[in-house]
């Protein structure tokens, strides 16, 4: 074990602390010049473990010759926090170490100073590292770099953000080949993936250091006296119980999965808040100043409860939380464990949490999550790899830093673990895309962004492009948001005049655009009435005493994790395990066993029954809404071909229901329809391709890829004109590209994203493989108990196909006319 220098030992001793074993283990690896991955639960002194080797090295008298340590965290707020926390030991030990932060908020003057006179430790975010290496001065700033600390690594590697970061790390490796990488992570199911991610490809995975496990959390599932709803996602039935729990705790964090749930829970709590407990609301759409206010009040201990979404997920220590309530099922055990970790941010005392299922299936899911959490079992989440759109962005960024040789850059890129399988051919296509758009029709040679020099290197054709890159870089593509402001409505000369006032926050443009004047919705904890749009955004007035038309946000809904899904199936398939479930849920499952059947955990149940002149087919894959929606699209196509005349489908997290004109039970019993064939894996071939090409989902994915790859510019609030001549709608680009160059690199990027994102083809593929030969069919006379929830959820997405014209026809009243016509 490495010994700490006396000055550090004294500092620890003065606090009555001793350095923890994992902190010393990381130090030992660092001293030996090795990288390492530290996995440790929250509150284990993880961040200090990462910094300790750097502090020890920098405690020696040194000259400031460039950045010594680069610390990268996923959150801007975390960066500022960390800098503050680090100042304390540095000052107390009297170390001469300069620490600075660099985030999107850092003013230009400070960046410039950092370039000329770099600090010892630079605390920053992934995007800033990419910007750093796109700076011609990067080599100079980074030439003496010794260490890179990557905090909350588990949360970064699963997204395109992590992919971009890994490319940036590889580039940093070119400037400072000996710098060690210290990864800090919460507990994950598969540490080996992270160990591999940290090492340059071709080298062995970095060594693993494990922190001591914390006390086991105490988790309960709310046993309400009220009836647990059959379906839906509101936990309104349990609001009185939740209010009672808040009353008994010092400070409660109430997590929900979506912003609309947050709004709803917040409002319902205040409706019964007779004791006037200070309960606040916190979610990503709210105005920043409002959020900061809530955070400050929390840290100061002035609040009793905060209703929040994942905005409070990551490792920021806000104060003295002693209870975490989770509304709705947590959808994944890792997410649950991290959220529970918010309470009692100390290792030795157990965290306390209460799960509130919003419907009967969620009772099963909460039970599964509870079991998983008690075993500290994690979901397996794989690092994202090889994104062509991200690579395109990175290639442009590298060119901003100076001319590059394609062969050398290819070698550097493939040293990133995430791109170890990138072929030279694909790399060259991406470079071609960055240079001239990558089109078969070579129309843009004279407008190329990258040009070849005499020495064969690629250089940026115009310095303005570097400025464009800085504005457009990053991998987080938000839905287009509009500001919501309080409107004052006056009558002037008999006409309604609406003017805008204070901003309440931002909402998705698509949501606002479907509101009609006078529609009411819940936002920022208030019921608002939509008063129209002006050039700055949306206007709304306060509405009192009316039921809101609640916003249905797209964002913030997590799919059920594969791991929890498996556990739910296991609980369902083993009636012996039902005894821990609430009585009403047990009754429901028993009725299912009696009326239809309950599948074993490796089986998939398919039920068919008639109801109200239609025929229903319900299957229960438990694979999450996204994969099941895709399955629904594909199955309806197949049923159409088989002559079943499907009318529509609806997918929940657990089940999929399709309704048809023809009697599917009869088709199956007479052998005209085979379930095994219907669910055959070959649906992932032509059917998928044909559907996807026309799908709006594909267009959305394409837009994201096009923005990341820099084909279309991001829209910056306040900077855009009316937009008509300036931008081209990405749907139009998609259509033209699809027709004229279907193998374009961006279409490939979009396809790859859709496959593991919005349409979850990957998971669907695993499902189809799993249920091969394991489909059990139950033909019924009427709806089964298990099918009730999904039938109740039949709602807006239940329209077959995209149904564009059908909806227009309905809106125009044509369908009704046709239906009512006598002849």
């Amino acid at each position, binding site marked *: 074990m490495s010994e700490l220098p006396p000055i550090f030992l004294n500092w620890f001793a003065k606090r009555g602390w001793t350095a923890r074993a994992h902190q010393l283990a990381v130090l030992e690896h660092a001293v030996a010049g090795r990288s390492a991955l530290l996995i440790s639960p929250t509150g284990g002194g993880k961040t200090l473990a990462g910094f300790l080797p750097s502090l020890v090295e920098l405690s020696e008298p040194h000259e400031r010759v460039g950045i010594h340590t680069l610390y990268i965290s996923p959150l801007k707020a975390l960066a500022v926090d960390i800098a503050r926390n680090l100042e304390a030991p540095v000052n107390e030990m009297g170390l001469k170490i300069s620490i600075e932060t660099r985030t999107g908020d850092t003013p230009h003057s400070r960046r410039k100073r950092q370039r000329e006179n770099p600090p010892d430790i630079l605390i920053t975010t992934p995007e800033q590292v990419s910007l750093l290496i796109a700076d011609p001065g990067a080599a100079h700033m980074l030439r003496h770099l010794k260490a890179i600390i990557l905090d909350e690594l588990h949360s970064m590697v699963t997204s395109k953000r992590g992919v971009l970061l890994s490319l940036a790390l590889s580039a940093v490796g070119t400037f400072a080949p000996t710098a060690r990488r210290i990864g800090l992570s919460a507990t994950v199911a598969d540490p080996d993936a992270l160990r591999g991610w940290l090492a340059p490809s071709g080298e062995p995975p970095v060594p693993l250091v494990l922190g001591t496990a914390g006390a086991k959390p105490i988790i309960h599932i709310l046993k309400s006296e009220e009836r647990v709803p059959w379906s839906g996602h509101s936990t309104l039935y349990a609001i009185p119980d939740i209010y009672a729990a808040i009353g008994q705790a010092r400070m409660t964090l109430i997590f929900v999965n979506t912003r609309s749930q947050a709004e709803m829970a917040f409002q319902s709590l205040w409706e019964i808040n007779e004791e006037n407990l200070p309960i606040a609301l916190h979610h990503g759409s709210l105005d920043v100043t409002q959020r900061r206010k809530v955070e400050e009040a929390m840290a100061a201990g002035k609040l009793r409860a905060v209703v929040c979404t994942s905005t409070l997920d990551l490792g920021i220590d806000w104060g003295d939380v002693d209870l975490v309530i989770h509304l709705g099922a947590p959808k994944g055990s890792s997410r649950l464990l991290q959220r529970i970790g918010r309470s009692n941010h100390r290792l030795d005392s157990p965290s306390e949490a209460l799960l509130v299922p919003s419907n009967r299936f969620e009772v099963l899911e909460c039970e599964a999550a509870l079991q998983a959490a008690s075993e500290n079992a994690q979901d397996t989440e794989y690092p994202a790899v090889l994104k062509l759109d991200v690579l395109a962005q990175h290639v442009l960024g590298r060119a901003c830093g100076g001319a590059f040789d394609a062969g050398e850059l290819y070698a550097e890129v493939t040293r990133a673990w995430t791109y170890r399988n990138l072929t030279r051919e694909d790399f060259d296509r991406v470079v071609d895309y960055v240079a001239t758009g990558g089109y078969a029709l070579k129309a843009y040679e004279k407008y190329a962004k990258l040009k070849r020099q005499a020495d064969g290197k690629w250089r940026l054709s115009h310095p303005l492009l570097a400025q464009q890159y800085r504005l457009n870089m990053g991998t987080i593509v938000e839905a287009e948001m509009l500001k919501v402001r309080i409107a004052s409505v006056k009558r002037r000369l008999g006409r309604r005049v609406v003017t805008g006032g204070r901003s309440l926050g931002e909402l998705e443009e698509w949501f606002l655009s479907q509101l009609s004047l006078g529609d009411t919705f819940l936002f920022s904890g208030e019921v608002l009435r939509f008063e129209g749009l002006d050039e700055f955004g949306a206007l709304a007035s306060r509405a009192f005493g009316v039921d809101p038309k609640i916003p249905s946000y797209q964002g913030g809904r997590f799919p059920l994790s594969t791991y929890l899904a498996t556990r739910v199936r296991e609980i369902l398939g083993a009636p012996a395990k039902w005894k821990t479930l609430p009585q009403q849920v047990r009754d429901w499952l028993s009725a299912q066993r009696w009326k239809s059947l309950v599948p074993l955990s490796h089986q998939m149940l398919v039920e068919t029954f008639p109801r109200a002149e239609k025929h229903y087919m319900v299957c229960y894959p438990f694979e999450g809404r996204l994969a099941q929606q895709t399955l629904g699209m594909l199955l309806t196509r197949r049923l159409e071909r088989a002559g079943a005349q499907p009318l529509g489908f609806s997918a929940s997290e657990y089940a999929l229901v399709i309704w048809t004109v023809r009697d599917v039970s009869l088709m199956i019993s007479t052998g005209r329809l085979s379930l095994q064939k219907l669910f055959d894996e070959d649906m992932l071939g032509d059917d998928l391709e044909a559907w996807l*090409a026309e799908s709006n989902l594909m267009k959305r994915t394409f837009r994201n890829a096009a923005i990341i790859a820099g084909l279309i510019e991001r829209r910056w609030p306040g900077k855009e004109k009316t937009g008509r001549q300036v931008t081209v709608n990405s749907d139009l680009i998609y259509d033209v590209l699809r027709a004229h160059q279907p193998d374009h690199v961006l279409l490939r990027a979009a396809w790859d994203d859709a496959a593991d994102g919005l349409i979850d083809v990957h998971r669907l593929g695993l499902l189809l493989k799993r249920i091969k030969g394991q489909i059990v069919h139950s033909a019924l006379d009427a709806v089964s108990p298990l099918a009730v929830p999904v039938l109740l959820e039949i709602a807006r997405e239940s329209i077959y196909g995209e149904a564009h014209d059908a909806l227009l026809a309905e809106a125009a009243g044509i369908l009704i006319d046709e239906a009512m016509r006598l002849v």
Partner: protein
Amino acid sequence: MMPFSPKQPESLLMRRCGLSREHRISLGRLDFVPDLSGALYVPELQTLLVADLHLEKASNMARRGIHLPPYDTRASLAQLQAVLKATLPQQLIFLGDSFHDNDARERIDETDLATLRDMTQRYETIWITGNHDSKPPTDIGGRVVDEVMLGAIALRHEPKALGADEFEIAGHLHPGAGVSQRGRYIRCKCFIGNGTRIIMPAFGSFTGGLSVSAPPFARVFGEVDYHVWMLGERAIFKFPRKRVS
């Protein structure tokens, strides 16, 4: 995996086109038949009207380093030819912004240029000038004018304030409209008409729609009622002003 089959499905090459069987937009004692593609046909005069083609828009943006697919001109012309083939008009009138800028002629591809020349040979062509193409190319055939009358109706690029008994057909604004139905919001390009004027949708493959509730439309129509004819995927749908946003 190959993202899509390399074969190009016929239907994808362009929007569907076809004259509406049921919709007529009346103006100044003439009947106009809207086409799914966004063109407008006048059977009585065998004239086809097309607004805002914005040819060479992509190559214009390429000059600023935005490399959109360089296939927009070809796609727009293919679409236009399909409409011409279906209607076989005597006269073809473009309502301005046919070219995205005055330099478009220098960038246009040889194949597309030949298509344009062939078109002006077959059909009597009038190019109305627009704010994007104050000087349309003169070497591709057809006549260039700032405005032209079609019976009692003025054809021009930008809508103007109209006096009593004046009629107008214009483009320029790229109208689009949206309808909410079953919690879904459907948006498409549209014609606007109110008995005194028609505003045509933009025809070009890289042109979109600006919401009819945006300020420029309020400046033209004020509080006056109108209808929109929305271009669906296979049919045209008519809605009153208050139903769309």
